[in-house]
């Protein structure tokens, strides 16, 4: 077979920068290098103009006003700014925050930080599909609840939460609604007006833009959202986030957003087709393959799948010319497998046996066919080596065994 290796199928981690994005960024390094905050000369004006053009592209992608876009260093900072910024600003009003156990660490750790500061955080569970419901949130809202933070699409499973329902509920109950939309932005349609989103974290490098730049959408009307800045200084970004603007990064982000918006329909259909081809081959050709997370409400390019009785890291080792990630955590000292999969009720063995494969702009059908062949070959090889597989073939129920955890 003539596919070029290594094959990259980890687009949920990061993406290559689109050559069109690189092209618009380059002059910002060597020619249009002015500080966007310099008001006294043409170098500054040009940079400011370029930043504002990017802001418009990003705003348009989510049906926002450009003034509602605050540039940051990335989604981790955006999540921190949203959660800590709201918590600090509304501390007098209340100190209760609602989030979900399957959130990204940037959200969970910001919440944990606030708990140490005396805030109260409710971590809602998800069902076996990976979903949280508006009813769960409605029941958790208290008079002192100030913020609900629930991710748009999960980074490990690709499961998409019912954002419009959650936004509507939060607006009815007059609670701020933040969503970490890093995985969803540029992949599926997002309308902050229709969905009732008050704050939203997004990132450039997940949509073929550069690393080190992201944004926080902050609603200006109905309601006007105010937050306490977490980075103080020159008062950039309407005082929400000080610091000299990363002009090349922002310009690249704007171009990446434009491309994502204009090609979204066509590209997501193509990517979905490739993912489904791969998923169907796995299910048909490898027994005991289990897809994690509901496919009913899901990103087009993400596939999280467990190959029972084969440990994920050993499988990755056998796929050395293929870049994917695993829900197993044998490399970390804790040995804890994915907390996201465990929260969905997956047993530890299946969580350890999971792979996350994400399809992107460059992926071809030939590549995923090669991947399907290799995965099948390695799963079969490793199962021949697996005592668990042998026990199951012998009709032994693994749950009936008294194991010795170590």
């Amino acid at each position, binding site marked *: 077979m003539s596919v070029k290796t290594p094959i990259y199928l980890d687009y949920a981690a990061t993406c290559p920068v689109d050559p069109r994005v690189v092209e618009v960024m380059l002059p910002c390094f060597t020619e249009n290098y002015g500080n966007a905050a310099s008001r006294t000369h043409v170098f500054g004006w040009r940079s400011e103009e370029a930043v504002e053009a990017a802001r418009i592209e990003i705003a348009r992608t989510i049906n926002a006003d450009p003034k509602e876009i605050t540039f940051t260093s990335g989604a981790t900072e955006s999540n921190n700014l949203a959660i800590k910024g709201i918590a600090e600003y509304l501390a007098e009003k209340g100190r209760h925050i609602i989030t979900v156990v399957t959130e990204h660490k940037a959200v969970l750790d910001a919440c944990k930080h606030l708990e140490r500061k005396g805030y109260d955080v409710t971590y809602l569970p998800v069902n076996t599909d990976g979903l949280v419901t508006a009813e769960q949130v409605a029941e958790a809202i208290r008079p002192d609840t100030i913020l609900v933070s629930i991710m748009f699409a999960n980074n490990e499973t690709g499961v998409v939460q019912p954002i419009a329902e959650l936004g509507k509920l939060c607006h009815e109950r007059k609670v701020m609604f933040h969503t970490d939309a890093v995985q969803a932005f540029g992949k599926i349609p997002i309308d902050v007006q229709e969905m009732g989103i008050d704050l939203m974290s997004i990132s450039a490098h997940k949509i073929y833009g550069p690393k080190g730049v992201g944004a926080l959408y902050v609603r200006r009307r109905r309601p006007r959202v105010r937050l306490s800045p977490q980075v103080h200084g020159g008062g950039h970004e309407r005082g929400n986030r000080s610091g000299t603007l990363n002009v090349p990064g922002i310009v690249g982000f704007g171009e990446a957003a434009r491309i994502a918006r204009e090609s979204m329909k066509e590209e997501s259909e193509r990517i979905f087709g490739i993912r489904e081809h791969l998923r169907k081959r796995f299910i048909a050709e490898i027994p005991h393959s289990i897809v994690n997370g509901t496919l009913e409400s899901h990103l087009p390019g993400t596939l999280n799948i467990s190959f029972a009785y084969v440990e994920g890291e050993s499988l990755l*080792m056998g796929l050395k010319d293929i870049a994917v990630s695993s829900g*197993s955590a*044998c490399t970390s000292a804790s040995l804890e497998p994915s907390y996201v999969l465990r929260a969905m009720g997956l047993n530890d063995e299946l969580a350890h046996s999971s792979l996350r494969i994400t399809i992107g702009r460059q992926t071809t059908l030939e590549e995923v066919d090669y991947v399907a062949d290799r995965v099948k070959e390695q799963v079969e090889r490793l199962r021949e080596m697996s005592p668990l597989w042998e026990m199951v073939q012998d009709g032994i129920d693994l749950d009936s065994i008294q*194991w*010795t955890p170590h």
Partner: protein
Amino acid sequence: MAYSTKVIDHYENPRNVGSLDKSDDTVGTGIVGAPACGDVMKLQIRVEDGVIQDAKFKTYGCGSAIASSSLVTEWVKGMHIDEAVKIQNSQIAEELSLPPVKIHCSVLAEDAIKAAIKDYQDKHGGSAGENADDSSVAV
């Protein structure tokens, strides 16, 4: 993370994969670990006159766990069980250049050989060799 060439070699060409008849009197079986922890090792030995004639393993776990068990089966073949029971995890870790986060794989392999020897000894009233650590799992 980068694996050592020895780990990769054992992972790609594992020695002595397979099973022996565990009901056979001359066979000792050790199963250690837990699926929940991401690794389970099954190590079996066939013993004649106190000497390990054959060794087989099956491992569910990362590459280092597979390599650790593969290496141990290689080492114990031809060894007296009184010698094999003395194998230390540090020797395995050193031979495979395991990084700190993978030391538990070598511990598991040490536990597995000790458990297999103990199972064999139990079948023979604990007569041959000294008693090993109690770390086996009854299947």
